[in-house]
């Protein structure tokens, strides 16, 4: 698999590690238990486009939001997590 890193270019997936779903908003400290349980444990796990966090750990060390189709592995978009959150 190849991941086009916005900083380093097209790279093999051996340079990356994957955390899991992206776009999960970390609840406020005072949010209720259900919100925290949801954030830490529950996942959509879609068959299709999936936004997920990849870390270019053997590259520029950027955390990236990779949008990828979980059925075909086609990479639809890659954005630095930092930029996306800003």
């Amino acid at each position: 698999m190849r991941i086009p890193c916005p900083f380093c270019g097209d790279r093999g997936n051996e340079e990356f590690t994957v955390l899991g779903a992206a776009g999960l908003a970390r609840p406020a400290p005072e949010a209720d238990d259900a919100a925290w349980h949801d954030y830490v444990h529950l996942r959509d796990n879609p068959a299709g486009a999936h936004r997920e966090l990849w870390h270019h750990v053997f590259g520029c060390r950027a955390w990236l939001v990779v949008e990828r189709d979980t059925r075909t592995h086609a990479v639809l978009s890659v954005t630095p997590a930092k930029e996306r959150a800003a």
Partner: protein
Amino acid sequence: MNAPLDPRTPADLALSRPAPAQPCRLPAGGLVDRGRGLSFTFDGRRLSGLAGDTLASALLANGIHLVGRSFKYHRPRGILSAGTEEPNALVELRSGARREPNTRATMAELFEGLEARSQNRWPSLGLDLGAVNGVFAPILAAGFYYKTFMWPPSFWEKLYEPLIRRAAGLGRAPEGADPDHYERMHAFCDVLVVGGGPAGLMAALAAGRAGARVILAEEDRELGGRLLAEAEEVDGMPGPAWVQSVEAELAAMPRVRLLRRTSAFAVLDHGVVGAVERVADHLPVPPAHLPRQRYWKIVARRIVLAAGAIERPVVFGGNDRPGVMLGGAVRAYLNRYAVRPGQSAVVFTAGDDGWRTVADLARAGASVEAVVDARSEIPAQQARLAARLGARLVAGGRITGTAGWHRIAAVEIGDDRGCTEGRGADLLAMGGGWTPAIHLSCHRGGKPRWDDALAAFLPGTTPPGMSVAGAAAGRFTTAAVLADGAREGAAAARDCGFAATEPQVPRAEDTPDARVALFHVPASRGKAFVDFQHDVTAKDVALAHREGFRSVEHVKRYTTLGMATDQGKTANVTGLAILAEIAGRSIPGTGTTVFRPPWTPVAIGTIAGHHRGKAFRPTRRTPTHAWAAANGATFVEVGPWLRAQWYARPGETEWQQSVAREVAAVRNAAGICDVSTLGKIEVTGPGAAALLDLVYANTISTLAVGRVRYGVMLREDGFVMDDGTVARIAEDRFFVTTTTANAGKVLQHMEFCHQVLRPDLDVSMISVTDAWAQVSIAGPRAREVVAGLVDPGPDLSNAALPHMAWRAVGVDGVPARLYRLSFSGELAYELGVPPDLGEAVMRRAVELGATPYGTEALAVLRIEKGHPAGGELNGQTTARDLGLGRMVSTKKDCIGRRLAERPALTDPARPVLVGLKPVDARTPLRAGAHLFMPGAEPVTANDQGYVTSACVSPTLGHPIALGLLSRGAERVGERVRVLDPVRGGDTEAEVCAPCFVDPEGVRTRG
């Protein structure tokens, strides 16, 4: 009299005798080098061949057809094909540690001294007692083993299975470690062409001329594909000559790389292709400078699949006898290898294709006894050819049986009126048509589509970036194949942005192959094999269907069709056709064949490459490694690191003696230990303190510059992730240490917390683990040792540099950092210096009276102090479990705070960290033992915890341990039973506080 010692193996001896002539070698022609004879042995028999031969062609040149035995019935088997699809002719190649079982004789290039043995037979290839299985074939039908061997139950492992295992398997694994080496290559190209036949050559030419970076991968040792095997002309010259001209042009293109002997075995996502180049398999032993094989990882923008096609055997009774060969293979042996595989031949065909075999056989001087053509109408030209050759022509004919044992002796021919006749023959050339080699187009989930006109599966949806050309795309005339290759090669180059034009297509044979679909002769006598190697017959397919196994996948799995080393290359489509016939459905209505990698079996060691033995994973050495090695250290693997475990001194015979001495030195004088493996991270920026407050459970932002704080971090699920220290170097700069094991994970986590959770913070961080040699200097005399190590000047007094403070110092004029930190509970420092000063610091510290100590003493010291480490930081413990509960700040947000409040994590009955002392001071405690109330039945329900770390304390003179014990904090003074059944341990211990030495911390602060 003693026989003289002869170092020669039997194979050597065989090679020393003169080889007989090759009786079936044609006097002229072929692409073999008649000037270079080669000797080889087969089952110890000395034979000769020519350079350019495969083992298969050389055996046939010697008139040898019987090469192997089948898997189940041990039927005599010969050489079916001339290529990668070979199911029958498997041998053990080479010997000893280089033995390669299950090697296809059709793919093994002949070399001087080649040694091959037949396999899976006893006592010999000619007389194999396993052949008795054939008699019991009705019982040994598909899936028989699911229905029996169940009584009595205990007999399966004791009797049935050992027998089956001994009988199963094919060749024998090599003996010992592989003496050869392998390498891994990465390559990037615009256009990867898989297959160097006419289509692939044209594709490479088109893309190469356009200036694209091209890689052409060909499985054979030579480019050319079928053009090497057929007697046909291209552009007015013999096929091989045309190939040479193209090859010369390609070789002159600097951006084109030709990889011969290279099988592309897997197509993966995003244009990644795995390939294996057999660099030295054609040599007796790889030269020192060359790997045996090379694993290529090719990243291609476009892939042109030009893998050709594989001829399909016809399923009829006795179709497996040695001497029954694929027609295309017969032509390859005749034309490429100048070998006549039979003297009196019968050709069984379903179309024009077989008539080429007839012509080539006749030209080579073989007698064509009969041509059995499944078509009822035979073109006049072909009928005339038969008549001219005096061959019996049976239109609408079928082969309905064969006779012979080690080699075919006669065939039975049936015509369309139901009459049968016998014919003597020592060669039966058969072919039911060609199956496009679309395998690589399926590796990414592409589904093939059935083409009724061609009676073949063609690529359906191809993966993005791949096109298919030539015979693989269902083009079956040379002219069409050449044109297709030119078109697809140019298109691929254009896709990559090159202005490619299609090269002119050379003149070539362009008569479409008129044929009928022929898979199976139902009315034939004897076992009719679909999958040769696994002995799957048409009856087995029918039986599977009868028993409800109707999906193609079910049939495959139940009968094992297509699961042999040839991966069903000659069997899958025929099996499907027979299943469709039985089910009364169309082939596409019955199912499709899907192909998974690898295209061809790949040596495990080729992909492993250099990552084996000591080089399996990189080894990290600390800056003081060489010094430690020179000073008697024994090293231990700690993750990727090698660390000094203890330093044995003369006279110390047991490691415990060394450790006890080292611990005593730290407790009574001073010791020095390399702790450079701890993860070290520099966190800088105005947002650094805020980030660390989020990452650590305790508050870091309140730490004063010049001070150090112990920190614990949680995972978001509330369990402890890691611990370490944080030194505030400046208002906006922190130096963080982590455990050795979690160094990478913690940095990654901090980057996550920053980039994903708090991108608003202006902070950056970098690993400085390798930038510092860090040593711990501990013991009552540590201060004087440190004073002697650092450049004069700094005030090291307790007041100036108290516990949990740090200051900048110099060592040899080089800036260094001195942290007052203690893991051992003694007055202790960690000194960080640039790595190249590490050894000097060790050496000087020892000169100043410090005793070097290793990880064992380090562990003992920390257990004596009750500090949690690996055994306790196991991902299953909370801060409270470890006695660190009060460190989790409730005044601020931090990772893991909320989920640490979940009921199960705050349950007062959870096991918490305690100290344990054996009641009988001589009995050691061991980590991993479980804890029980004395007298309680030792079962899971009564399990109260376990020992996490244990040692013999030299300071206290008896064993001690740390453990996690349910409600442990309330149980100090109680006794627990320490049960270690896997090591036969059963003792009692007294629960105590986890800190055994100086619980008030007086020494640390001294």
